[in-house]
């Protein structure tokens, strides 16, 4: 069981805290000969696989390194365009490492504000009166739980679908936020949280919640 990440979103939709609680999954490295049997394309300044799945390389995975040297976005370490480099048959055989691209801080800010509006639309499109926004969003690999306080701050936790005790965890995080962020005289409201005690206590709360384990499907 696992808790993947924690996001705190202020009432304007700004991301004020984010913590990733998982190590990125095993990545696939493979040596290719010319021509490449995958279709690559550029998306969001990254080179990603758009067609062809094999040996643990999946559509959507990004090129992380070429011949053991990490790439910088869509360029190789020495500034050449990755796509152009891979078109040149004299560079083969070449060893390429693929994996899920990590989210950049900018993307995290964007996703947080995206959820902020999804939350509001979820409540507007409700067929029932007096509905809140999205409280739980489920996919086949993770569940997103959201708790909005009366003051409008959203606590978002991404966890394994079978992980239980998330409601208690969300309230615990609220408590930690009230104790260690709000009572910190150097913390200004609505701004990113940079308080050491908050970090420490949040990590302890996550460990405790993960130990609570799972009790079958649902939580």
């Amino acid at each position, binding site marked *: 069981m696992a808790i*993947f*990440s924690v996001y705190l979103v202020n009432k304007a939709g700004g991301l004020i805290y984010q913590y990733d609680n*998982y190590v990125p*999954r095993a990545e696939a490295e493979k040596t290719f000969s010319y021509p490449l049997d995958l279709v690559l394309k550029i998306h969001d300044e990254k080179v990603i696989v758009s067609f062809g799945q094999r040996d643990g390389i*999946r559509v*959507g995975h990004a090129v992380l390194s070429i011949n053991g040297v990490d790439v910088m976005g869509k360029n190789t370490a020495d500034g050449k365009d990755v796509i152009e480099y891979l078109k040149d048959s004299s560079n083969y055989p070449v060893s390429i490492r693929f994996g*899920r691209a990590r*989210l950049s801080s900018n*993307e995290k800010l964007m*996703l947080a504000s*995206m*959820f902020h*509006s*999804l939350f509001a*639309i*979820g*409540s*507007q*499109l*409700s*067929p*029932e*009166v*007096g*509905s*809140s*926004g*999205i*409280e*739980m*969003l*489920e*996919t*086949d*690999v*993770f569940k*997103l739980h959201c708790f909005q306080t009366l003051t409008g701050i959203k606590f978002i936790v*991404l966890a394994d679908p079978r992980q239980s005790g998330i409601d208690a965890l969300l309230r615990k995080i609220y408590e930690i936020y009230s104790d260690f962020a709000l009572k910190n005289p150097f913390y200004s409201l609505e701004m990113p949280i940079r308080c050491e005690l908050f970090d420490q206590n949040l990590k302890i709360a996550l460990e405790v919640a993960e130990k609570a384990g799972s009790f079958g499907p*649902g939580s």
Partner: protein
Amino acid sequence: MTVHNLYIFDRNGACLHYSEWNRKKQAGISKQEEFKLMYGMLFSIRSFVSKMSPLDMREGFQCFQTSRYKLHFYETPTGLKFIMNTDLSVPNARETLHQIYSTLYVDYIVKNPLCSLGDPLQSDLFSARLDTFIKNLPYFNPRAA
């Protein structure tokens, strides 16, 4: 337990079908605007979920719930989207949505040469069968209101 409403969208975002059974609150905008808002929300959720996910996904977004209702989502590989809103006590309606697709949509729309795909569904037979199908669901029991 109850079913509120059902939307069917094609892969371009056009609303092919909409029907409602026990809907207590309207969105306060015209139906056309509501369909656009609903499709936009689902489109964003799909992109949001694929970026947020820590692992590779197979099926992606399945459902979400608020304090009052639950939205079930099913997408076919051809991009047709089936959305059903129910109350919170319905555990999983994806099987039902798949049945609506495989038995009702395929049989009464795809196999009907007079229905052109991509236009709003006109078939009365389809609407009638869908209505019967939904009303026979074990969780279709409007609470005494």
